[in-house]
């Protein structure tokens, strides 16, 4: 039996329910040396901003138990250079391309969305309203239902591209934010971004990250992510892309059963450059083993205890 792994999310036709977590796969070139990119359901590129961004000073990374902290700070070459140098490569992969965008003001998201609407070969925009590293950046939107709605509404009015709102977990009620985003026109929700965290070098008595704190990712946060995906899936009708610590097909199935229509693989790429392909294969094997003929049958298929 050959399982049908395909899924359509907000008009994005994915051959498998697996994409990449923004910022952990660049534009796919490097991991293309390890895996066949065309096996992915979609590629979600690193967040871009309108102007180039230098990012935060190093150190920008610190390993933690079953995870890592990062404080990259959205280093990116800006939309123009991205469109010129990376978009053609991404387009050539043949898989749907999700572009993650961020800005410090609503207008910046708006202008990015309009700019990218003119380009060919973009399957959807992901609104990064959640990066915790950039003080003047997304975090203000993502912790407020009101700002989230305002932002999504504005971008919605300027583009016909499907919009995915990517949520931060650093909130009291993730469902409130999700409901606000969907109410304002988001076609899908992705979550979770990194969890705020900090580590200290006790020998030198300084924070391990130059900017003090950063975002926690990796297997450590998986239970947090699964819970939020589950809660959001009960609160909104739109599809969910789940992420947070996924290493294997089994981990992905956990998110799908919790209510995600697809998943994204992030930090695990760094330890296993074939992780994304492994997750696709692992999902396939699980489905085979359990006689699942369509992956869509598994979405939210959680029995009560």
């Amino acid at each position: 039996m050959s399982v049908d792994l395909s899924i359509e999310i907000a008009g994005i036709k994915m051959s498998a329910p697996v994409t990449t977590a923004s910022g952990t796969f660049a534009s796919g070139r490097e991991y293309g040396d390890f895996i066949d990119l065309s096996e992915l359901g979609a590629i979600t590129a690193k967040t871009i901003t309108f102007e180039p961004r230098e990012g935060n000073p190093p150190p920008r990374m610190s390993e933690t138990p079953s995870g890592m902290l990062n404080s990259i700070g959205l280093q990116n070459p800006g939309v123009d250079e991205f469109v010129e140098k990376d978009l053609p490569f991404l387009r050539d992969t043949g898989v749907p391309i999700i572009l993650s965008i961020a800005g410090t003001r609503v207008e910046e998201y708006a202008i990015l969305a309009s700019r990218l609407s003119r380009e060919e070969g973009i399957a959807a925009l992901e609104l990064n309203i959640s990066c915790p590293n950039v003080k003047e950046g997304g975090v203000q939107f993502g912790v407020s239902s009101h700002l989230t709605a305002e932002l999504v509404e504005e971008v919605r009015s300027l583009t016909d591209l499907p919009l995915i709102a990517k949520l931060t977990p650093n909130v009291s009620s993730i469902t409130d934010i999700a409901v606000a985003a969907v109410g304002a026109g988001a076609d899908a929700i992705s979550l979770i971004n990194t969890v705020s965290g900090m580590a200290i070098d006790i020998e030198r008595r300084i924070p391990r990250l130059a900017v003090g704190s950063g975002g926690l990712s990796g297997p450590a946060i998986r239970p947090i992510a699964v819970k939020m995906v589950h809660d959001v899936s009960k609160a909104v009708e739109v599809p969910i892309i789940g992420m947070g610590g996924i290493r294997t097909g089994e981990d992905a199935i956990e998110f799908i059963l919790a209510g995600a229509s697809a998943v994204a693989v992030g930090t695990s790429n760094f330890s296993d450059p074939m992780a994304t392909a492994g997750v696709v294969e692992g999902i396939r094997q699980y489905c085979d083993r359990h006689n699942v003929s369509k992956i869509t049958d598994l979405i939210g298929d959680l029995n009560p205890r």
Partner: protein
Amino acid sequence: MLAGLPRGATKGPCWEPEFVNRLHQVELIESTAVTADVTRLVFSAPEVAKLARPGQFLHVKVGGEDAFYLRRPISIHDVIEDRMVLLVRRVGYGTNWLADRPVGSAIDLIGPLGTGFDSTLAGAQSLVVGGGIGCGPLLYLLRSLKVRETPGTYIVGGRHAADLFSIEDFSSVAKDVLIATDDGSQGHKGLVTELLASELNDTSRKYEAIFACGPEPMLKAVSAIAAEHGIPCEVSVEALMACGIGVCLSCVHKAQVDGSTEYVRVCKEGPVFNTRSLVWGN
């Protein structure tokens, strides 16, 4: 900007990158403690050995299957036929895990990675300066300089004589070996940079290039001395790395690119940089 940095922009033309980012499973065939905390690991690794260039590194998986750990970058210390040699200094979980592998273990690694040293800079006379575990990548560099018939002079520093390692190996490939120790227990008593300066002040020699690897303060000092003498200088810098292949932007170092400063990736544009383009501090 980063994406605007032409590959190899900070390198000479000979290091046209032809990265093969493949995963390798290599077998540990020899493991020897060379100092109290440094272990020399020899792997059977024909594919990696074929591609490896001096100054490049490997991104090595540490820890068992079930726990999550990031990979650890380790420089290529030497290549002998189809064997690859690493020197590992025990500083934490990963390096201890590696140094504790029994002979026969299969190790999972990515590489060779990074741009490596540009040994065409060397000319007839070059100085190769190492400090601490930073001496690691310099053996293979010296070997390749010797192969090019431009053997380098090796200047090495450590705290005590007991911290120095593989001096015989270095002697066999270097034109000359100069030693400095903080406590004078071997060679010059003082800093390696003092030896470097006095070498350069000796007008009977005409050094055409300096290569260095070691702690950042040492590299900064070497860089300043090189600039003072107007000699091209390449240094291999360290950084905390997650992906090791240019994706995550964890490992950046400030550098001059096209006249402006920006953060470039140590794992991709480095770890070896010409000090001309490197900016010290954030």
